[in-house]
Structure formats: structure tokens, C-alpha cells
């Protein structure tokens, strides 16, 4: 009799375990809202016009205004350049990962696909990265740029957070599309001869 009671209790707990782990808790967890990190940045250009041979400073404060995220990327690209060596210098950098320098011809991700779709880079860029990114975290990137040619010097800036779950997972949300088919804000400095 005692054994039958014990076996019944064991049976009850086995059923309880499998019910909770396979049906009840998964449903509860799946009904939770996914975390949505929201990137944002502000850019300050030291000059809007310089003479050839002079330098200007680009300062970016990049932040996450949303939930916890796995990866935060701030990309600064230079569509009028073919290489950045000797022209762009990083002077301030406080992201957790080392910066990644992309050169024309590199295979890079596109369309916010997290690497599932890719393109060949047409111009150079610098990617600053945080893994993971906490809510309200702020990071700084400062570049000293010394253009080598007169004319309009253009800089594209964008930020993407992963997981990329909606339009809120990138900044800006609209505007100019870059070579990765992703939205950017553009900044330019007039370089006088």
C-alpha cells in the first residue's frame, strides 16, 4: 500500500515535470516580449569648411535608448575615399570591441540581415562595436580627418543593434541608403583648395 502511494506520488511529479517543461513554461516564455535595443547617435563636426591640408574633428556619441542588446554597431564610412590610411585617425574610442576597418572589396553584411545577405564594400568604413549593449549605455568615437583632395568630403554614419527585430533596431530609420542598403545620416565638410 505504501509502495503504491509512493509510485503514485512519483508518477504525479513526472507528469508535473514534463507538463511544466514542455507545455506550460514554454508558452509563458514565448509570450514574453522580445528585447528591443534602440540605437541612437549624435554627431558634432568641428568645422563645416576647411582649407586643404587642415584637419577637422568628427565626434560621435552613440547610445542605446532601448532594451538590453547583444551587439551595438556604429559605422562611419567615407564614400569619397578609396582608403583611409593617413587621412582618418581614431583619437577617442571607448567601445568594448576593437574597431573593424573595412576596405573596398571586403565582403560585408547587408540589409540588416545579420550576415545572411552580403555585398562587396565599395568604400572604406570603420565599425565600432559593443558586445553586449546595456540600456542607456553611451560610447564615444572621435576621428581626426585630414582630407587629401579639395571638394566636398562626405561621411556616412549609422548605427545598428542586434537582435535586429524592427525599424527601431537601427538609426536612422529613413533617408539615404548606403552600399549595404542600410540607412545613413550624411555629413559633409567643404575642403577649399
Amino acid at each position, binding site marked *: 500500500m505504501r509502495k503504491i502511494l509512493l509510485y503514485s506520488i*512519483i508518477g504525479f511529479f513526472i507528469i508535473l*515535470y514534463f507538463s511544466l*517543461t514542455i507545455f506550460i513554461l514554454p508558452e509563458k*516564455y514565448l509570450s514574453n516580449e522580445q528585447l528591443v535595443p534602440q540605437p541612437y547617435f549624435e554627431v558634432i563636426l568641428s568645422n563645416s569648411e576647411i582649407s586643404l591640408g587642415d584637419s577637422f574633428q568628427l565626434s560621435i556619441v552613440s547610445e542605446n535608448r532601448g532594451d*538590453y*542588446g547583444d551587439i551595438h554597431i556604429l559605422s562611419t564610412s567615407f564614400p569619397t575615399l578609396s582608403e583611409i590610411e593617413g587621412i582618418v585617425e581614431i583619437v577617442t574610442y571607448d567601445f568594448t*570591441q*576593437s574597431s573593424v576597418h573595412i576596405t573596398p572589396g571586403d565582403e560585408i553584411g547587408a540589409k540588416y540581415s545579420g550576415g545572411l545577405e552580403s555585398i562587396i564594400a565599395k568604400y572604406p568604413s570603420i565599425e565600432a562595436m559593443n*558586445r553586449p549593449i546595456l540600456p542607456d549605455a553611451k560610447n564615444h568615437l572621435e576621428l581626426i580627418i585630414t582630407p587629401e583632395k579639395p571638394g566636398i568630403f562626405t561621411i556616412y554614419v549609422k548605427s545598428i543593434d542586434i537582435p535586429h527585430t524592427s525599424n527601431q533596431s537601427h538609426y536612422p530609420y529613413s533617408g539615404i541608403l548606403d552600399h549595404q542598403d542600410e540607412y545613413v545620416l550624411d555629413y559633409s565638410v567643404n575642403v577649399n583648395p
Partner: protein
Amino acid sequence: MPLSQSDLPKKFLEIHSERIFLFGSIFTSFGILLVTVGGSWDITNHLLNRPETFFSPPHALMYTGVAISLIGVVLSFFGWHNLQNSKDYYFQSLKIKLIGIGLLIGAGPFDFVWHSNFGLDGLLSPPHLTLILGMFLCSIGGMIGISKYLKINNLKSIFSYLLILAVLPIWLSGSGIISSLSLPFSNTDYFELNPEPTFAFFVASMAFPFLISFSMLLIFRLSNLRFGMMSLLGGLFLLIYSSTAIVPNFALFDSIQFYSLNLIPFVISDIFLRINNSKKSLIFVGGLLGSIFYMIYYPYVMYTFNESLLGKLVSPSLIYFVYFELIETVLLYTVIPAIIMGIIAVFVSEKFSRKILMKKS
């Protein structure tokens, strides 16, 4: 005749040689336990923070463990060398430990050179495989040494708990081997070493259930059917796995509640075998323990099954959404082979423990 000053250390070694061998085995197993904890932490660290240097806290823990294991093997050797009449009895344990520590020590510089030449390496790489195999062999050697000592000296009571230290590193390092052969964490810029998804599916579905059941029933048998050992072993496994794979990931924190439920089948197995330890009961427990592998290896086992069943891109904060999306499908495909593997482990653990516990002639 009085002993001369120079004879004292020799005499001491002769008298305490067996105990020194035991301490060597304990150190070896404890060292491997640290390596496995560091290894699990390292996987999480790579997934969340992508460390860019070889010198990371999980690596420090792992190599501290290697150093402790090395001390353990050296102690074992000195202990064994001075044994008077049970050299053969302990030789198997020493031999396995020596091979294991050779692989472990070799893996350190190999890993450093690999990192230096190829940057960040994946889970499955030649140095990592060397390291994990060395860990597994050392843990087997340590377990045999501890079990034999307890058996020959007929030590029960509090000493039986040493068996948890003996078996846990085997379970964890065995999990490391299976994870290396099934998780898609091994592609790098230089090498594409991710296991083929179907192969990985089979490895995970067969080997994890076997390993859970084998480890639990091994401790049950080695401890002479002692009640509570399986719950303690299972509880410690869950504690280590949750603190290295779940707690560090902010997005998984609330799933601790789900993971802690896994203690139930371990306690049930203990109670069930306490009431009745017949062959049929052992088979039931083996099947039960095999069937819960997908829950026990939460969260990373999801990556293996996602490769074959969904093919989604899963970033760390999305792990549990994909895990729970897959749970019913995975169990549908795997529950029967998992139960069978759990039952096979019952018989293998019986043979294995019998071989270990053979008394010296």
C-alpha cells in the same frame, strides 16, 4: 634498529603512499572540474562578449585547473611509486591520468600558438579537442583512483561524497566532447569546422542521453546504491551549468525557474531506486534520465537542433525564444532514441563499475 634521518621521508612515503595516491586522484579530478567550469564559462564568454585575447578570466580558470591536475598526477605518481603491494591495483588509474595530463599540458601551448596564428578559434579546433580529450582521460583516471581507494579501504559514510567529485568531471568533460561535435560554434575566418547539421543532430540526440544516464547510474553503483548521491550529482551539474551558461546571459535570467525544475527527475530517480532497485527499476530510471537531455542541456543544445530544423539566426538574447519554439518538435524526434540510449547506459555503467570495483587479487 632506529631509523636514520635520511630514511624518514622514504618511510613516510611508504606508509602514506596509498593516501598520497588518493590525494593525487582528488587533485586531478578537482583540477578537471575547474577546467570544465572554465570551459563552459568560456563558451558563454565567447558568445556574449567575443573576447579578443587569449588572456581571459575563463581561460585563467581553465589553466589553473590544468595546473592543479598536474599536481594531482605528480602526487599520484609518487604515491603509486612507493606503494608496497597494490601497484597493479592502481596502475590503470595512473596510466590513464598520465596520458590525459600529457594531452592537457600539450594543449596549452598548442592553443596559444593557434590563437596567435589564427586569431579567435571555434569550439572544435585541434588544440581544443586535445584539451577536452585530456580532460576526459584525467577525469576517468581520477575517478578510478578515488573509487578503488574507497572500495579497498571499505570507506563509506562521509567519504562516499568524494565520488561526486570523481564522477562530475567525467560528466562535464564528456559533455564538452559531445558539445564540440554537435554545436555549430566552430567556423572561423580561417576554418569551417562546424559539424554537419544532420551528424550533429544524431550526436546530440544519442550521446547526451547516454551520458546523463551513465553518469547518474555510475555514481549510484560506485556508492553502493547510496540514497541521495544521484540528486547531489545532478543538482551540482545543474548549478554549474546554470551559473556558467544561463546566469551570465542577462536575457536568459528569468529562465532559471525552468532550468531548476530539472532537479525533479534526479530526485525522482533517487527515490525510485530507493524503493526498488530491481533491473526493471534501473531500466525505467535510465530511460527517464535519457529522455530529459534537451531540458538538461538548455540553452546551447538549441543551436544544434536549430541548424537542422529551423536554420534561424539566433543571437544570444533570442536563445530561449528559439529553444522553446523547438522543444516539442525536438522531443518528438528524439524522445525514443534518447530513452533507448538512457537504457543502454544502464548496462554500460553496470559493466564499467564492476570493472572498476574489482578487488585486487
